[in-house]
């Protein structure tokens, strides 16, 4: 399994070779689950790991892979239709494996950041600081993953330059859905002032509406 993870990180053709697609998709899914759970558990340990707070660790551990796979599943249908429409259907199984391998890469990078997060949690008790730090970790992991996606997509783009446009379209759709998904699945870290919950009671809000309001209040509207 660690060997598989290394293949993904080195962008070896292993993940995207043509044979045994189904098996590889399953293996990549497993990588996402395992490493996602790893980082999620660490992320949820802010309020401590004993008693009531232990559940926050479990919840976050479940939610991180769910966040990634859920976003992926919601964005996939439109990506499939648009790929077909641009005449790239024959490459779709390759694209699918490249995208999933990138997700796996993202979780592996995140898991490798987990020790930093632990150190941060041990050092600082500020909840807002923890949120910012995790945002920073996710941001760095996403940027790394994007770089990985480019490497996986290189042969595709060499074959047909439209793949570049579609890769960008994918990133836009994925970010749009992913931000809202992350918002809906709060809390990941667990505020020390709030009880441990799987979902926040008031969670069914909209990240973009909130963002618009914050921007507006900053401008002074």
């Amino acid at each position, binding site marked *: 399994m660690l060997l598989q993870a290394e293949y993904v990180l080195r962008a070896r053709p292993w993940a995207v070779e043509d044979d045994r697609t189904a098996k590889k998709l399953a293996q990549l899914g497993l990588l996402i689950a395992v490493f996602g759970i790893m980082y999620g558990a660490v992320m949820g340990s802010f309020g401590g790991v004993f008693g009531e707070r232990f559940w926050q660790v479990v919840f976050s551990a479940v939610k991180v892979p769910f966040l990634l796979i859920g976003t992926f*599943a*919601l*964005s996939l*249908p*439109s990506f*499939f*239709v*648009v790929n*077909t*429409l641009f*005449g790239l*259907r024959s490459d779709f199984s390759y694209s699918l494996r490249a995208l999933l391998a990138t997700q796996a890469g993202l979780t592996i990078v995140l898991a490798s950041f987990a020790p930093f997060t632990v150190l941060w949690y041990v050092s600082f008790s500020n909840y807002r600081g923890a949120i910012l730090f995790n945002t920073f970790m996710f941001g760095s992991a996403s940027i790394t993953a994007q770089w990985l996606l480019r490497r996986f997509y290189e042969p595709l783009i060499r074959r047909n330059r439209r793949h570049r446009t579609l890769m960008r379209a994918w990133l836009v*759709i994925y970010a*749009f*859905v992913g931000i*809202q*998904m992350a*918002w*809906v699945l709060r809390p990941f870290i667990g505020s020390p002032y709030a009880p441990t919950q799987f979902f926040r009671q008031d969670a*069914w*809000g*909209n990240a*973009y*509406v909130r963002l*618009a*309001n914050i921007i*507006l209040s900053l401008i002074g*509207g």
Partner: protein
Amino acid sequence: MLKWFKQLDKILRGDATRIPSLAEGRFTTPVAGLSVAIVLLGVLYGLCAGTFAMIRTGGEAYMQMIASAIKLPMLFFLTLAVTFPSLYVFNALIGTRLSVISALRLLIAALGVMLAVLASLGPIVVFFALSTKSYPFMVLLNVATGTVAGVLGLGFLLRTLDRLVIVQEDIEISNFEASLKNSQSEEKESRKIEPTGALDRMGKVTTRKAKSVFRIWTIVFALVGAQMSWVLRPFIGCPTAPFEWFRERESNFFIAVLQSLASLFSL
């Protein structure tokens, strides 16, 4: 049923609109089954759009989902019905070889592309409907998905029409060559072919005219479709208003979108 979706798939993959398939300047893909597939996809997206009312108001709100599921396919076919006559007339005026049947088939194929894209965005719409309280946001999200679907569908239409024009030019050139041969063999007996000067444009004039007419027409289709969606509203169902099949005649699509934008930023 699988057969109908296979036809749609052929169109999406572009198999139906390759140059050889368009030979003789006709579009021959059968559309009866395709229309059924379009209706089904429309019902699917209508259900997705109506989900918001289901979550917010509860009780009889399932009526909104049913109404949206019925109205969404109607939206597309009514837009087609409104815009088709003028397209055909202009198409005949500029002298392309597209027959009524071919033109209709082509437009239904374009609708197929639109609805495939729209339905594929359905899961995202449902996800936001389940997690959002903001009605203006849902309106704008649906406008956005509709715009993406419309742009891709009309893009498909324009590309196919361009290809038809290319095919037509090829036919004209081969006819011209044939008539040239004839006239040589008949030792210039008849001078039916006008002598052309060095600067005369050949063939291209119709092509350019055709392209500009089709471009204008796609804009008309987009405008009619947008307004039609306003006429047939509500699709999403404002949580504070009671369920109605149709709303009173007031305002228009573009003002409503601006209002939604304004209220999204002023909450």
